[in-house]
């Protein structure tokens, strides 16, 4: 089996292409090697795993140009401009001694790759980007994400669902895609590709024009993309992170998009310009939930560090920390009047707490396992849980109101559309269920995997 079948090929292809292009265009004087186009992708692919932050092997870090050209523990210059033979980076990748050669305990770089590094150093080891401290991931050429499966062999877990503005479409997470369905009958309407491996969060802008898609590749990359809701055209890509983005939410005015992820950060982007305006690094672990206050002035977060925090959305200042849950928190929502924050967690409860003083005001218990999602609308609180249930509670008194039956596995996500009065929830099994909130009746049930044919019942085999 080839190594890295899906990701390596485009890269190797790129390198080869560059080499071929080089020869074809200017046989006599090839254009200089580009750090961002040629070297950074190599470092990312082959070196970053061991020489990434926070504790790089040998004290040598390749996370950005400045670091990659600095000496490690050996104090031998990693790069001596113009002199590859005096550069540890070149010496170690070209060494013939298996014990010292890099990458360690892995295949050596190809002769072409080694030659590329050698020439880059010989040409002065120059940087061709704007900020030499910009993370490598942010300067390498953007490549289109791999295509989703034409027809799914098997369902994939549903980690995000969202109703569009008029409630006539339901966006659902797929594998390298977002699928758009008719929530009334479960018919597939469209597919939006060019997204990362996992889609963790879907959000329509309040005016219905944009669909924000957050996700990425676990442990490797996080991304947030804005698509035109109507036709799936990519409008903008908002930054890139070192790990999956778990939540993206529009402010009530639709002018800002707040994003939280496994890199422990919360970022606020200006929707029109796509610029990152605020970076909050206040959590000690993944931030997986995020909600705007109804007035758009504050942001509440949910983190695996067992706290929920409240921030000033205008400047990122921390206002309050709620530690009352005592377990990982997965989801957060404001009450309609903004006077309560609901947090759902691994303690099998939803806590209600006061954003003004951080005091706990009540809780919803009775879940069999972790509560993974909580959303609110007027007097309604919807939740989904690893105990396979989707439930509705009244905001008043936090009393149980209704259960939406049918799911047979952990329910990862839930959404509610007030105008159509529909509730949608997706589970690990790949199944999406839509109900009428009014009477609790099932509206549609479907496996959100285009082209997937369930196997014949097992009983028939025997």
């Amino acid at each position, binding site marked *: *089996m080839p*190594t*890295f*079948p*899906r990701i390596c090929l485009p890269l190797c292809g790129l390198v080869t292409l560059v080499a071929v292009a080089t020869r074809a265009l200017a046989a006599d004087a090839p254009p200089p090697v580009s750090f961002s186009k040629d070297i950074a992708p190599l470092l990312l692919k082959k070196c*970053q*795993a*061991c020489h*990434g932050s926070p*504790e790089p092997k040998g004290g040598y870090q390749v996370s950005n140009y400045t670091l990659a050209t600095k000496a490690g523990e050996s104090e031998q210059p990693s790069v001596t401009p113009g002199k590859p033979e005096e550069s540890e980076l070149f010496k170690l990748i070209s060494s013939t001694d298996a014990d010292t050669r890099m990458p360690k*305990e*892995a295949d050596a770089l190809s002769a072409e790759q080694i030659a590329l590094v050698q020439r880059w150093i010989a040409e002065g080891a120059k940087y061709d980007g704007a900020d030499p401290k910009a993370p490598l991931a942010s300067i390498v050429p953007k490549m289109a994400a791999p295509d989703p*499966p034409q027809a*799914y*062999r*098997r369902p*994939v*877990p549903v*980690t995000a669902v969202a109703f569009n503005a008029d409630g006539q479409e339901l966006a659902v997470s797929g*594998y390298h895609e977002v699928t758009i369905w008719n929530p009334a009958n479960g018919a597939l309407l469209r597919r939006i590709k060019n997204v990362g*491996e*996992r889609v*963790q969060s879907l959000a329509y802008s309040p005016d219905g024009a944009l669909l924000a898609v957050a996700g990425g*590749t*676990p*442990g*490797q990359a996080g991304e947030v993309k804005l698509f035109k809701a109507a036709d799936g055209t990519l409008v903008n890509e908002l930054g890139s992170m070192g790990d*999956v983005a*778990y939540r993206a939410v529009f402010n009530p005015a639709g002018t800002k998009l707040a994003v939280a992820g496994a890199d422990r950060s919360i970022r606020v982007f200006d929707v029109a310009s796509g610029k990152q305006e605020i970076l909050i690094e206040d959590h000690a*672990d*993944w931030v997986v939930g995020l909600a705007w206050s109804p007035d758009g002035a504050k942001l509440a977060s949910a983190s*695996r560090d067992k706290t929920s925090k409240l921030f000033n959305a205008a400047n990122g200042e921390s206002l309050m920390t709620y530690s009352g849950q005592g377990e990982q928190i997965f989801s957060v929502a404001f009450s309609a009047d903004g006077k309560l924050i609901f947090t759902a967690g691994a303690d099998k409860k939803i806590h209600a707490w006061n954003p003004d003083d951080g005091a706990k005001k009540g809780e919803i218990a009775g879940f069999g396992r972790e509560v*993974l999602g909580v959303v609110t609308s007027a007097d309604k609180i919807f939740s989904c849980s*690893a105990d396979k249930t989707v439930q509705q509670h009244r905001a008043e008194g936090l009393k149980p109101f209704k259960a939406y039956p049918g799911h047979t*596995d*952990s329910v*990862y996500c839930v959404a509610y559309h007030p105008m159509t009065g529909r509730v949608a929830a997706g589970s*690990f099994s790949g199944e999406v269920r839509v109900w009428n909130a009014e009477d609790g009746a099932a509206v549609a049930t479907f496996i959100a995997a285009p082209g997937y044919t369930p196997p014949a019942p097992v009983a028939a085999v025997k």
Partner: protein
Amino acid sequence: MSWNSWKRTAGLQACGLALCLAWQGQLLAAADAPIEPIVVGTPSRIEVFPQQAKLDSTRRTMHLIVSGFYADGAVQDLTSVAEVKSKDEKIARTEGSLVLPAGNGRTEVTVKLGGHELNVPIEVINQDSPDKVSFNYGTLAVLSKQGCNSGACHGSPSGKGGFRMSLRAYDPVLDIDTLVREAFNRRTNLYEPENSLLLRKPLMEVAHGGGRRLKKSDSGYEVLRDWIAQGCQVDPDGAPTCVKLEVYPRERILKRPAHTQQVLALAHFSDGTVRDVTQLAVFSSSDEAVATVDANGLVVSQDRGEAAILVRFLDKIETSSMMFLKEIPGFHWNSPPENNFVDHFVFQKLQQLQILPSELCTDEEFVRRIYLDVIGVLPEPTETAQFLADANPQKRAALIDKLLERPEYAEFWALKWGDLLRIRNVKVSNGGVHKFNRWLVAAFRDNMPYDQFARQLLTAEGSTFVNPPANYFRTATETNDCTETTSQLFLGIRIQCAKCHNHPFERWSQDNYYGIGAFFNRVQRKPGINPEEQVIWVARAGEVTQPRTGKQMQPWLPLTGSADLKGEDDRRSTFADWLVRPDNPFFPKVEVNRIWGHLMGRGIVEPVDDFRDSNPPSSAALIAALADDFAKNGYDRKRVVRNILNSRTYQLSSRKNEFNATDTKYFSHATTRLLAAEQLLDAICRVTSISEKFAGLPAGTRATQLPSPDVESDFLKVFGQPARETACACERSTDSNLSQALQMINGPLVHSKVRDDKNRLRVLVTAGKSNEDIVAELYLAALCRKPSDAETAAATKHITNAGDRFRGLEDVCWALLNANEFLFQH
């Protein structure tokens, strides 16, 4: 931090440490072990194990272990050099000695070697459709083998990097959730299995704090990938469960040039099938200096000696006992006389391993050694002189008998047990300390049979003042403490780890832990009439619930299983009945081992209260013989002590010869060791003849008589007196440190006694003794021998040159107290 929480933490760290070592052992083994080419020679016959195999799934394989037997009785593992060929490649194929399935049917695999040929019938079935990976016995076994769920990594209580698995996969229900559903299915990629974080992290394709733990060429990679590709499923209800692990060979003696052994691990399942799990099992060696074992189960000898190869497959553990011998040039067994069965077993092993025992120790060494070991104090110079002058050839045995009847014997051994029973004011009150101590002293004085001793402690009821053994349940304040203390003291089992999870490297499960607890959880404690006293009573009902499973536990006994007990009886009696049953292998062994450890400086099992498969005795036959003699003779502890002391083994010199210089565990010479804190203090008092005063205790009380460590003595603490916080013999520190040196060199205790107006040397001066005589008596008091002429000359010269005679004599006394010959038992 409370003691209990500290203990838990410490326990976990200890577990983690041991695991780290085991893990490193595996990693290093391949690189460190020099494997020489195997010389086949001319075996008189060969054997193949297993003799037949059934491959009942596409995932099943079988290693064949080939052994050669030689005319001289030697045996050698020839697995790697045997020619193994299938008669029908369409049914079974071979890779080296590994047999793999190819298609349904029956065939034979031929093993050829050294002119011998054997056929192994192979049956292959169920090849029509690929078999699924078992979550319990495939996925989790791989994660265990790669160390992912070890105590130092994701198996720690809080996991690592936010990813937590159960330690060594004791909780598959938790693990399946963590691996698949937790974190929104982050860790496994059902659509493209190769892209799963669960694979890319250990492959180091994605940064991994634990480094590279997996290669694509590892069989484990394939198992994990296939399991994900098959949908990350758990085993169906009713799937066969592993009921037994079998290792081959169980035991083997290899003599150079034979120096390697492939170990085979076979898992027996509840449906009767047998699977080769060698690739999935975890191997470790009890003594890496003797033998290393690599991740594939190949054992390589590093030195002569014995090692237990521990084979673990999930919660099943078995050992393969290996002995490695080699011809030592110039070695000649000199057939030392055997005084009793102790010598018989010790010498048998020494001869086999070609280790030559030291000479018999001198009378001077013997008298010092025996006083310190039996009664904890040095002999008076007159006693020493009398013994040395005695012409009776049986004088050593006579002295042993005499010392065993001395009151100090009972007091000194009560001190040892006082440590284990944690006798302290804070635990049993001041009054309780003295009452409990008096009970212990009486038990040793009267030589109370050990079974009665244990029974009195374990079934005690009533007031701790009226019935001191009831303090056993006062120091053990709750059920878990009773479980752990009782297991360690009377069974030699450190079962603490099993409180929170199945023991990571032993056979004890969490169920076992709470099953033992079910014998003790009805014990209740209430205040007595005296405010210092407590009353122990037994409730008529009450059950133990296993915290992980929530199941009510039946009382459970090792090797016996669940005990069916009538409702209201005191379950502790049942436990005690079982404990002292003649066929209980744990009970007598741990006590004879403890006694042996006290007398020899090292247990046959070391640490003395840590019996486990991965910590085998240095002589199984010896400990069995001692335990057997103990059990058959009314659990008479003095008899055990006497047997050991009268052996030539005990009486060997600490001076080594060229054939036993490196031996540390086969008792070929006496083990030198620092005197215990109390022995040392008493010895200083003896040499100076100035006793130590302990607050609240009568004048003249010796340190070895102390009922508890509640007397505040910096000296004793510095020299390792335990605070009696645990029932572990390990609490008494045997480490040496700088504070000890400072105490001896210029500490107030030594100084004041050496300078005391009424000390030995001043009394001798007053009596008109010459410097020579005084020096001689000081030597006799401190070292139990006369000074040599050179020593006398040097000492008297120093005294003369000192100007002040007292100052000079004090210097000599001080020098003696700081001599290793004084500080050490030898």
